[in-house]
């Protein structure tokens, strides 16, 4: 006769042993990996560079096989956009020149060096809102330097510098708090990163805020950090919840400027 027996499951001592093993691996892993920080990043960097060029190759290939009509339509659209941006650029550059002249009169000069860098890794490869760029201490990148988009607007700061790479922590990183102000009404606020290039902020219900309002960093340059995309106000709430979108889709950023 076939008999089945109840299986013996762990005793307390097995559990204790498991806990010790897991704990030891964790501790030794942390020590080992912290020691290997620089070599690990140096090994990964060429792979990321290769991956970027492969992705670019695929993109170019997909462009080649698109239909002629679609390309003509896209070309026309882009021409239209370009002409409108040209006009906008002329307007803003004259304003910027005036601003710079005024500021230099008051002893604030901004001719500091900027470093252009290519983004090696960006979300979603990185689970946190982090970019890895190909400029490091050898390119005079310093910890705490601010990171801008080439088109203008600030996105984050340098949180870690290696010789040839640096890590950029985006202001939109989950839980990162940034002092900013709402352009409408000059209201000081604390932006809280919500991940994925967005922020959330709570404001008293009396503060006027509308979709499209700009959030700026409090500096003499008033750097743009995001735009309001949603305002939620329940009749029973004393505060309104505001969702702010960062300037770009963090998954598409390819170049940044470090200042």
């Amino acid at each position, binding site marked *: 006769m076939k008999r089945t027996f109840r299986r013996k499951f762990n005793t307390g001592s097995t559990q204790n042993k498991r806990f010790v093993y897991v704990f030891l*691996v*964790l501790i030794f892993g942390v020590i080992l990996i912290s020691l290997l920080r620089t070599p690990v990043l140096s090994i990964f960097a060429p792979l990321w560079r290769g991956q970027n060029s492969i992705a670019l190759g695929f993109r170019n290939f997909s462009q080649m096989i698109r239909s002629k009509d679609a390309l003509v339509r896209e070309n026309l659209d882009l021409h239209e956009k370009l002409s409108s941006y040209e006009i906008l650029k002329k307007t803003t550059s004259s304003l910027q020149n005036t601003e710079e002249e005024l500021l230099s009169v008051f002893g604030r000069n901004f001719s500091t060096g900027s470093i252009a860098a290519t983004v090696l890794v960006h979300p979603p*490869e990185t689970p946190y809102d982090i970019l890895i760029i190909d400029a490091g201490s050898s390119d005079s990148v310093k910890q705490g330097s601010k990171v801008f988009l080439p088109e203008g607007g600030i996105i984050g700061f340098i949180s870690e510098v290696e010789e040839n790479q640096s890590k950029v922590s985006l202001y939109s990183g989950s839980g990162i708090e940034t002092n900013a102000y709402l352009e409408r009404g000059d209201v000081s606020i604390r932006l809280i990163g919500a991940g994925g290039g967005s922020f959330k902020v709570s404001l008293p219900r009396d503060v006027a805020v509308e979709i499209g309002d700009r959030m700026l960093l409090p500096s003499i340059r008033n750097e743009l950090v995001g735009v309001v995309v949603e305002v939620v106000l329940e009749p029973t709430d004393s505060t309104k919840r505001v969702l702010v979108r960062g300037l770009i889709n963090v998954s598409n950023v390819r170049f940044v400027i470090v200042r």
Partner: protein
Amino acid sequence: MRILFTLIVFLALIVTPYWIYFPLILIGIVLFPFYLEAILLGLIVDLVYGGGANSNALFGFPFGIVVAILIFFTAPLREYLRFNA
């Protein structure tokens, strides 16, 4: 098999989005008994993509810690699983 899987996950965490290598690590924890390699993989993710200067000591490795906790708690549950019919 176990080493090959670990190598695949290691390559995946360099070149693929997190929504590919996170589930792979979880699959490894379920598939292989006491898959301690996952802790090292988790620590590498935290080291390479983690918060940098903001992070400190052990708490700078949140994913590694989560993986370690998962391994500890799934190890007894694995004994209830059968992978053959």
